[in-house]
C-alpha cells in the first residue's frame, strides 16, 4: 500500500488531509513540523509527502537539506500560497520536489496530483 506522510503545522488542515487521504485508500502518517518529520521518516518510510511551505522551526530549505542524509527518499508535493516562475520551478525540481499545489486548493486537484505521482511510483 502506498504510504503518504502529511507534514503541516496547522492541526485542522493536517487532520483534514489525513482523513481525506485515508479515505482515498492510502496508508497515512502525519508530522507537525520539520524536526518531527525527519524523526519519523525512516520509521514510516513514506512514498510521498505533502509539505507545507511555511512552518515554525526548520525552514523548507533546511528540511530538504537534511532529507539528503536520510535513507528514505519520498516524492515531495509542496503546499504553498504563491506562484512560481519557470526558473523557480526548475530549482524546486532540482531539490527533489515533484510538484506544488497552491492554497486554498480544491481537494480533487490535490488528489489528482497525488495520484499522478503515486501511479508512477514503483511501490504501487
Amino acid at each position, binding site marked *: 500500500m502506498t504510504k503518504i506522510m502529511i507534514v503541516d503545522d496547522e492541526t485542522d*488542515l493536517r487532520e*483534514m488531509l489525513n482523513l481525506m487521504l485515508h*479515505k482515498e485508500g492510502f496508508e497515512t502518517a502525519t508530522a507537525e513540523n520539520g524536526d518531527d518529520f525527519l524523526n519519523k521518516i525512516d520509521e514510516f518510510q513514506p512514498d510521498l509527502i505533502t509539505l507545507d511551505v*511555511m512552518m515554525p522551526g526548520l525552514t523548507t530549505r533546511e528540511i530538504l537539506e537534511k532529507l539528503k542524509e536520510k535513507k528514505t527518499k519520498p516524492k515531495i508535493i509542496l503546499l504553498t*500560497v504563491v506562484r512560481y516562475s519557470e526558473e523557480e520551478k526548475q530549482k524546486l525540481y532540482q531539490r527533489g520536489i515533484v510538484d506544488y499545489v497552491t*492554497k*486554498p486548493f480544491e*481537494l480533487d486537484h490535490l488528489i489528482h496530483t497525488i495520484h499522478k505521482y503515486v501511479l508512477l511510483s514503483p511501490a504501487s
Partner: protein
Amino acid sequence: MQNKLKKTKMFRSLTTTLVFAFLALIVVIILISSCLNIYFRLQTQEKVIDGQQQLIAQKAADAVSNYILQKFSELESGVRLGDLGITSQEEEESAMKKLIGLESAFRRLILLNAQGEETVKVSRLSSFASDQSTETLDDPFFLETSKEQRYISSIYVDNVTSEPLVLIAVPIKDVFDDFKGVLVAELNLKFMWDLVDSIKVGDTGVAYVVDMEGDLIAFGDTSRVLKGENLVHLDEVYEFVGGNESLYEGKSEISKGILGNDVVTTHVCLGSPDWAVVVELPVEEAYEDVNQELRLTALVVFLCIVLAVVISVYLSKRITKPIIKLRDATNKVGEGNLDVNIEVSGKNEIGQLARDFSQMTDNLKKSKNELLEAQKDLERKVEQRTKEINEKVNELEKSEAATLNIMEDLQKTVDTLKETQTTIELQNIQLKKLDRIKSDFLNITSHELRTPMSAIKGYIQMIMKRTLGEITEEQKQALNVIVRNTNRLDNLIQDILDISRLESGTMKFISEPTNIQQMVNEAIETTHSLAETKTIHLHAEVEENLPPIVIDKERIKQVILNLINNAIKFSPNGSTIILRVKKETNNILYEVQDHGRGIPKEHQAKIFDTFYQVDSGMDRKFGGAGLGLSIARGIVLSHGGNIWVESTGTLGEGSTFKFTLPLIPVHDLEGKFREVDIFRLKDAKKTIENDLRNKTVIWEEETKEKGE
C-alpha cells in the same frame, strides 16, 4: 659590415679587366707568332744541316773513293809501263820496285801469273815481316774475280804495326786481251786517315769510314782505328750495315755519335769498296744558331710583354679614368654634394656622358635651390602661423582662467548634488527595507488567511462528496450556502491580497511568451457556465496570426475574466457580450463590449479607484467589493499598458472596456506599478531623481559649451 665586404669582393675594377684583356690578346698573338717562327726556323735549320752533312759526307766519300781509285790507276799504270806479265822476271821486278818507290801507300806488290802462281814479289818491309796477304791470295774466288775486274779485299790488320791493310788487285792482259796474270798490292790505309782527318765538319764535327762489318777503317783518333773497333752499336753505322737505306736515306738523324755525344749524323756509301763515310755534327753546334735565335726570340717576347703591360695599363687608365671620375662625381652627387666639377673632355661617348652628367647636376642644383627657397618660404609661413597660434593660445589661456572659475562653481554644485544623491541613496535603502517588510507581511498574512480556508473547504468538499457519510437535502442546501459564502470570502481575501501587493509594489509577475488566442479561449471557457445562467451570448473576435507576446498570462487572463464577469453581471438576460482582440501599431488592443445600462461620464474615470463602488453608494444589488477594476488597472499598468472605459451613459447602449498591452514587453514587470503607492514615498523619490537628472543635464550642457 659583411655585406660591404661582399660588395668589395664583387667589385672588379674596369681598369683591371681592360688591362687583363689587352695583355691576354697581345701575349697570345706574340706567343703564337713566336712558336710558328721557331717551328719553321727549326724545319729550315734541319734541312740546311741535312744538306750540309750530305754534301760533306759525299765530298769525303768522293775523296776516299778517289784515293782508292787513284791507287788502282797507279797499279794499272805500273802494269802498262812495266809490261808486267810479258817481259822477263828481272824487268818485272825492277818495274815493280820503281812502282813501290813511287807510291808510299803500297807496302808490298805481288805479281801472279795466269795460273795464280806468285812470280814476283817486292816489299817495302824486311823479309822476315809476316805476310798475311797469302791467305787472301790462296782464295780461288780472289783469282776468279781479279781475272776480269779490279778487286779489293776486306780489311785486315798488320799483326806487328796494327795498321789496317787491304789488298787491291788489277788483272794483267795482253794486246789480245788474254789474261796474263794479276798484280796485287798491299795498300796501307794509314794514308787514308790523314785524308779523313782533314775533312772538316763544322767546327767540332768529325768524319770516319766504316766497312761492311761496321769496323772502323779511318778516323782522326788513330788509336781507335788500330784497336779495330766495331761501331755497329751506333745507329747510323747499323743502318749502313743493316742496309735499311730505303727508310733513312738522305736524312740526318740525331743519335749517339762516335764520341758518345748527341750528334746530327748521316752517311754516304762509297759503292766500291763497300765502305761508308759517316759524318757527325754535335747537336749543340748544329742548332747553335737556332738556339741563339730562340733565346733572342724569348727576350723579344719578354720585352714585348713588358711593353704590352705598360701600354695596356696606359690605355686602360686612359679609358677608365673619365669613367672613374664620373663615378666619383656620381657618388658625390649621391651624397648630396651638387657642386661637382667633372673635368672630362673628349669628343667620344664618355665625354658626351660627362657633359650630360654636368648638365643633369646643374639642373639638380637648380631644383635643389628652388626647393630650399620653397622650404625657407614654408618655414617663414610656419613661424608666422606659430606666432598666430601662440597669440591665440594666450587668449585661450586667459579665457581658460575664466572657465576654471566657472568649473569651480560647477564643482561646488556637483558636490552639493552628490550629497543629495547620498541622502537619496540612504532613503532608497530604507525604502527597500520597508518593501521587504511589506512583502514578508503580506506573504505571512496570505498564508495565515488561506490555511484555515483550505481546511474549511476541504471538509465541506468531503461532506458534499459523501465521503463522511450520507447527508440530508436540508443539510445539502445549507452546505451550498456555506460553499457560496466561503468562495466569496476566499475571493475577497484574494482580491485584498492582490490590491495590497499592487499598491505596495510587491506583486509578483511571471512573464512568459503567450498565445493570445489560447488565453482568450481559456477565459471564455471559464466564464461560459456563468454566462449561460443568464442566457448571455459570449462572442470572441480575435485577429488572426497575432504574434506571441511576453506577459504574465494568468494575471492578464484575470483582467479579462474580471471584465467579462462584470459585463455578465451588468448585462440583461439574453444579451450579447463581445470580446475583441486586435493588433495596433505598438499595442495589442483588448475590448469587452456589453449591452448593459452604461456608465455615466462623471463616473468613468473613477470606477477604477479602489473601493469606488462602495464609496459611491451605487446599487449594491450586484455585489462585489469594487476591487476587481482596481486590480485590473494595476495589472495592466504594471505591464506598461493602459485601461479605460467608453460609454455614452445612455441606458441600453452599454459600455466598452478597453485595455492595451505593448507588443514589446516590459521585462522588469515586478514592482512596475507605482501609481497608488500608499506611502507616497516613491513619488517623493522620483521627484528628487528627476530634479537631480535635470540639474545634471544642465551642467553637462554648460560644460560642453565652455569646452568649445
